[in-house]
């Protein structure tokens, strides 16, 4: 498997895009990963699921801010769904 830096950047962008596309109401709440289900447990050790949910939510927040400006510049070959 011969990688180039460009293919790594492409793979990272596609993965981040896949995480950012997960819809809050239609999908995440149905499987119990909604943002309203992560509050609680104010101990100093948040579990794995809470950390993952926070990660998904922060990726979506960050991508919402940046992809609105950079959609014309990202030339994604597979034409997957973007926010």
């Amino acid at each position, binding site marked *: *498997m*011969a*990688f*180039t*830096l460009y*293919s*790594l950047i492409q793979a*990272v962008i596609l993965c981040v895009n896949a995480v950012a596309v997960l819809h809050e109401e239609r999908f995440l709440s149905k499987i119990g990963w909604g943002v309203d289900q992560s509050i609680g447990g104010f*101990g*100093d*050790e*948040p579990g*794995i699921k809470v*950390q*993952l949910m926070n*990660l998904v939510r922060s990726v979506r927040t960050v991508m919402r801010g940046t992809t609105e400006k950079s959609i014309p510049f990202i030339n994604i070959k597979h034409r997957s769904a973007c926010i």
Partner: protein
Amino acid sequence: MDLPQHGYRASAKPRARAGPHTGDPLLFADTSSAAPPMNNQGYYTPGYSIGGAPVGGPADAGVNNLFADPMASAAMMYGSSLANQGKEIVNKEISRYVSVNKLKYFFAVDSKYVMKKLLLLVFPYTHQDWEVRYHRDTPLTPRHDVNADDLYIPSMAFITYILLAGMALGIQKRFSPEVLGLCASTALVWVVIEVLVMLLCLYILSVHSDLSIFDLFAYSGYKYVGMIFTVLGGLLFGSDGYFVALTWSSCALMFFIVRSLKMKILSSLSHDSMGAGATAKPRLRLYITVATAAFQPIIIYWLTSHLVR
């Protein structure tokens, strides 16, 4: 394995001979603790005498001849001030993305440390004390502590690996210049992937260790030393030598990684909650450490097997 240290010493000798005595502490000073005490003039006096000495004649006569011509001296002043400005701009831009002081800590090494660390990477079984020593709340520089990680060995080993890969392919008459770039970017990409996965795991399991990004790059980069050892074994002794060197360097590297990361990841338990969440967490942290260690032989085999057919 000898190559990085030999190159470092060879480039240090001519400067030590030609520069003035006051220039030496500047080049070898431990810049990890504070800014260098000399101001800008210290940067230029070694340059003048290095330029003067190879001309022949005593240094005094050379400097006098240079300043006798006013145009040349004016041009030199202008050029030096321009270079100074350029240097400041570059430093400012770089320090916006990467903390230069933190990076300097990782390159404050000397030859004794490099030799001991390379020996440790090849034969870590007799080393007793794996604790990273601290000095008033900051970790000691690699110069004073053999357990501290550095970025000098990984970067030198990376470049040596690329050169060795080119040589191995050339011996088999499969060399072309594009292959060097491909090999370099493949190895770099795998290190970046490993660092990103480690960061993700450390975040998800909320492991509050003091491993920064540079530490992770350092621990991932130590596998290049194992790769160099393996490729050398394969080149010198054929296919059998390759597999013997592969198993030896894999075991040594796995032992090294497990012992080093155990100190950093598993011992950070003492900061967190004592009794309540302690049941599931040590097991997961152990899994991370063991998975990191088990990944090393796989990637060593993947990146070196095509070089030694």
